[in-house]
């Protein structure tokens, strides 16, 4: 491992180069951790749903608690109309959570610390929500940009601001997750580097920081997954129940 705290975000090829036309779709360490995350999600939830006992065992309890947690989150923010999108938001939450958490293991790669990954997720959500909104409300969905109860003088300004805020949703959504992950991991690496460079005499202070940061980062990993999912729910709520 290099001393550069950014080198932990390097993507490198594992195995041969795979090309489809002009596109390079080689298997990389990012792909490896995506597969690891999805496979562990599927494994845990498959085990958790296999047996249906009245008194659930630990893994079943885990699966059912996650299920009720996400389903409550969706029904609280987006109402009952959002039920068909439950599976998507559940997978999204679990995927982001597991990628974040896998990143917390030393020497691993954090999939969600890459802007391209979070941006693809956010853009997919943005496009999907917009399509759902137009299907549900037709051109009435444009009323989203015209809040009620605004004086007519301010209306042109407000509409412009609303449109900009709507269009910046995928960017804010993706940058929030990516920046949080990157900053946290960089900071941990920097403090780790301090421990090495200060040695046995001065290394204890950055080491204790590092320990505290690890706890904080685990919290952030969960929190960012939650924020990502709940913002998706809020956008979905806008598209399903036009409140403005």
């Amino acid at each position, binding site marked *: 491992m*290099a*001393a*550069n*705290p*950014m*080198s932990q*975000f*390097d*993507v490198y*090829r594992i195995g041969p180069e795979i090309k489809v036309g002009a*596109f*390079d*779709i*080689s*298997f*990389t360490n*990012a*792909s490896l951790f*995506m*597969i690891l*995350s*999805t496979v562990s*999600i*599927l494994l845990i*939830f*498959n085990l*958790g*749903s296999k047996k*249906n006992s*009245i008194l659930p065992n630990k893994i*079943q309890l885990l*699966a*059912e608690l996650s*299920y*009720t947690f996400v389903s409550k989150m969706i029904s609280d923010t987006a109402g009952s109309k959002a039920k068909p999108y*439950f*599976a*998507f938001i*559940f*997978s999204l939450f*679990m*995927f982001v959570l597991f990628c974040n958490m896998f990143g917390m293991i030393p020497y691993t790669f954090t*999939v969600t610390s*890459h*802007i*391209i*990954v979070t941006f*693809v*997720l956010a853009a997919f959500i943005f496009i999907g929500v917009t399509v759902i909104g137009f299907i549900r409300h037709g051109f009435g969905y444009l009323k989203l940009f015209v809040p009620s109860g605004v004086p007519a003088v301010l209306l042109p300004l407000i509409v412009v601001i609303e449109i900009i805020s709507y269009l910046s949703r995928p960017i804010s959504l993706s940058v929030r997750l*990516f920046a949080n992950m*990157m900053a946290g991991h960089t900071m941990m690496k*920097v403090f780790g*580097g*301090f421990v090495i*460079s*200060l040695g046995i*005499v*001065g290394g204890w*202070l*950055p080491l204790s920081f590092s320990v505290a940061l690890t706890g904080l980062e685990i919290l952030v990993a969960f929190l960012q997954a939650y924020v990502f999912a709940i913002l998706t729910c809020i956008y979905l709520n806008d598209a399903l129940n036009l409140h403005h």
Partner: protein
Amino acid sequence: MVKKIYFQSIFFSFFFIKEAFAAESGGMPQLNPEFWISQIFWLILTFGIMYLVLSKLILPKISNNLESRKSQILENIEAAEKQRKDSDAKLKEYDEIISKSKLEAKTIFNQAREKALKDIDAKREVLDKQIDNEIAEAEKEIDSLRKNAPDKINKIAIETSSGLLHKLIGAEVNNSSISAIVEDLSKRNGDKYYGN
């Protein structure tokens, strides 16, 4: 002093590390588009497969499990409620039986007491009559005895006084004259002795 050296060393090391970072170039690997297509491809592949498996196979099972547990719990609660009602009804029945039998026992007791009292009364009446009869007979006897008593006493008094006179004076006194005196005395003092 030690503290000062400590913090100074941290500061300097930070400085040196910064120097070291500056030496290595590259910036953010996230902005290097070399593997963007690959990441998008693998993201869509893995996420898509995970979504399909979760939504088609696993999540319905979990929701089914939750539903079945919920319904079973509701059923159990209903059954428990029913059993509770049953036991309440049985308790009421039991209470009724107890109060009924208590009432019955009371009436039986009262009847028995009345019967016993009647028996006692009847027996007492019979006994009273018997006692009254016996008392009456005894009184009659006493009366007859009392009636005869003055005559006998007079007779004894006459004989005693004649005997006494004969021994003291040596003269024979006519019995009839003595009896006249005795009767006269007894008539005068009779009330004093018999108390009638």
